[in-house]
């Protein structure tokens, strides 16, 4: 057990939880004018996997990406500014909540087309392999992503080339409001799909950050040693509605019993309890940590909200790169 690492786990879990709660609280002000998918309840998957990676490793994600972005070390103020449509946002206000990026920490992009960044992560690992680098790529996606053809195309090529890529499936049981049982046969697991490609597949409790980090570390180690890709199935649960700041028990597509049972298995509370028991932290330390994060989050919101919006000229900027990289660099 590594004490500084464990303290960082808790800090990241709390940061994601507090940021998402603050977004939920302020969302009804109607100033964050973009679809926003909150990950409250799913923090441990993001943190456990990202803490198994190095800063030079890269991560891709999907529509519910705030946790992944923050866990990889993405800039908080630029994320909030992006959601507020400010030019200081990580995508200059052109992407919104669903298009986060921070290349400086290896968070290479999130997009809301289900499964779409999976081949990109494979491609990043392919690029590393072509250049002989020992970096690892990880991609987060949900249980519905395995229903897309490109998921299988990606796994097949990752196996063919034994690429250093980690496929992280956050199984939260629903694709928007459609349950897993309406989409996939109960007779085979998500891991079976990866095993069908000949890939190592591991299942771990997605609400237990220590368990997640443990399987992720093994996968990253195997990938870095040339052992090829790994598929991780991490069951977890989204507490709020698919998109937006509210609870959605009233919609009736999932029972109050189910929601409450998952809330009792809160990933943040679980980590706090374990770390208190192990005396890695004490109650006063957690209180100070929370206060420190809350201050950071308030500052980030204040900075984001006071930043300018993109001006009209920004509309047609970045359609094309306007850049060229000569193949004979030495002669130009």
């Amino acid at each position: 057990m590594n004490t500084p690492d464990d303290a960082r786990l808790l800090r990241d879990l709390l940061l994601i939880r507090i940021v998402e709660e603050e977004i939920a609280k302020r969302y009804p002000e109607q100033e964050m004018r973009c679809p926003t998918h909150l990950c409250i309840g799913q923090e441990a998957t993001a943190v456990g996997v990202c803490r198994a990676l190095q800063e030079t490793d890269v991560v891709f994600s999907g529509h519910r990406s705030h946790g992944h972005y923050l866990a990889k070390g993405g800039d908080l103020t630029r994320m909030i500014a992006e959601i507020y449509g400010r030019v200081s946002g990580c995508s200059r206000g052109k992407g919104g909540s669903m298009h986060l990026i921070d290349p400086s920490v290896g968070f290479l992009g999130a997009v809301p087309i289900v499964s779409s960044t999976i081949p990109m992560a494979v491609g990043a690992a392919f690029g590393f392999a072509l250049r002989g680098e020992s970096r690892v790529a990880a991609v987060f996606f949900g249980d519905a992503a395995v229903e897309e053809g490109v998921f299988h195309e990606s796994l097949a090529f990752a196996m063919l080339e034994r690429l250093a890529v980690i496929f992280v499936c956050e199984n939260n049981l629903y694709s928007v409001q459609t349950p897993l049982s309406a989409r996939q046969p109960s007779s085979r697991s998500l891991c079976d799909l990866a095993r069908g490609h000949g890939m190592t597949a591991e299942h771990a409790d997605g609400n237990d950050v220590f368990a997640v980090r443990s399987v992720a570390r093994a996968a990253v180690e195997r990938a870095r040693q040339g052992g090829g890709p790994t598929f991780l199935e991490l069951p977890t649960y989204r507490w709020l509605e698919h998109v937006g700041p509210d609870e959605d028990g009233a919609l009736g597509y999932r029972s109050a019993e189910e929601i409450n049972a998952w809330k009792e298995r809160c990933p943040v509370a679980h980590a706090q309890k374990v770390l208190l028991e192990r005396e890695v932290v004490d109650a006063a330390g957690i209180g100070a940590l929370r206060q420190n994060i809350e201050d950071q989050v308030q500052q980030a919101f204040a900075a984001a909200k006071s930043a300018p919006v993109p001006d009209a000229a920004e509309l047609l900027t970045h359609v094309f790169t306007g850049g060229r990289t000569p193949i004979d660099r030495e002669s130009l």
Partner: protein
Amino acid sequence: MTRELSFAQALCEATDLCLSRDPSVYVMGLGVPDVKGLFGSTAGLVKKHGPRRVRDMPTAENGMTGVALGSALVGMRPILTHQRVDFALLAMEQIVNQAAKWHYMFGGNARAPMVMRLIVGRGWGQGPQHAQSLQAWFAHVPGLRVAMPTTAYDAKGMLISAVEDDGPVVLIEHRWLYNLRSEVPEEIYRVPLDRARVARVGGDVTVAATSYMTVEALRAAQQLSRRGIEIEVVDLRSINPLDIDALLASVTKTGRLVVADTGTTSFGVGAEVVARVSEEAFSELNAPPRRVASPDAPSPSAPSLSIEYFPRALEIECAVHACLGLPPPLAEPCAHPLDIPDPDFVGPF
């Protein structure tokens, strides 16, 4: 030094130079390293550069486009090939939603330098799913550069420019151009991805043409010249962005416009060129502009139907005559079957 090369040889030489000069470049596509070498356009490259950089790939167009894109995001410069334009349709999600928008939707904080080479497979009964010419589709997507070289010289220069461009470029290559030869310098040179080329100077009618239709336009020009009509042939080369300045310069001189495109008519390149010229130089036009393109139907297989489907020089001559208020010219019999590019050709493709 300059010598004659075929269009396919020019593409191959450009690729060879890019692979030699830049270690981040690699070529990937079904059949790229095989003996046929993508109709000769990658022939011999695997021997020189090895199977890691001159690669075959699984038949998984969408996934492999994402793989190419992902590698580009970490600094590689892939050239991805498809033996038919039609096969790239499986990859439209990665091309349209992702590669085209990557730079813009992340506020300029990321770049996706990648080349996608798509081949139009007209002729020898290729039929509804092996002969589509979908440049208008791709050109409609903001962020994608779409280029269609006609000559061997442009094929080499535009492929080098495409590899060097820091964004995604779709290069659409007409199969009937592959054996056509022109003077090509041995060294590295660039042909810009946003400039048209005046392929023939003339004062009576502007014929703006894409890709292989430039060849047909030049054939039409010979026939028309015998009748005292001199057309100016503008080879568009770049579909997106469109070189509107070159078009306006020509139309201002001739006052008449015909657009000859390899695709189908409605919502096509012809529609866009006519619209842009009409918006910006309506008063310069002395006659309604005309489009020459395939009818709005899938491309049929039977030779008898494909003869009707693919426009040729004669249709361009007819359109030029109409612009000038002249009756249509008489058709002259063609010496060889019309479903192949030249009399030496034998099937299959």
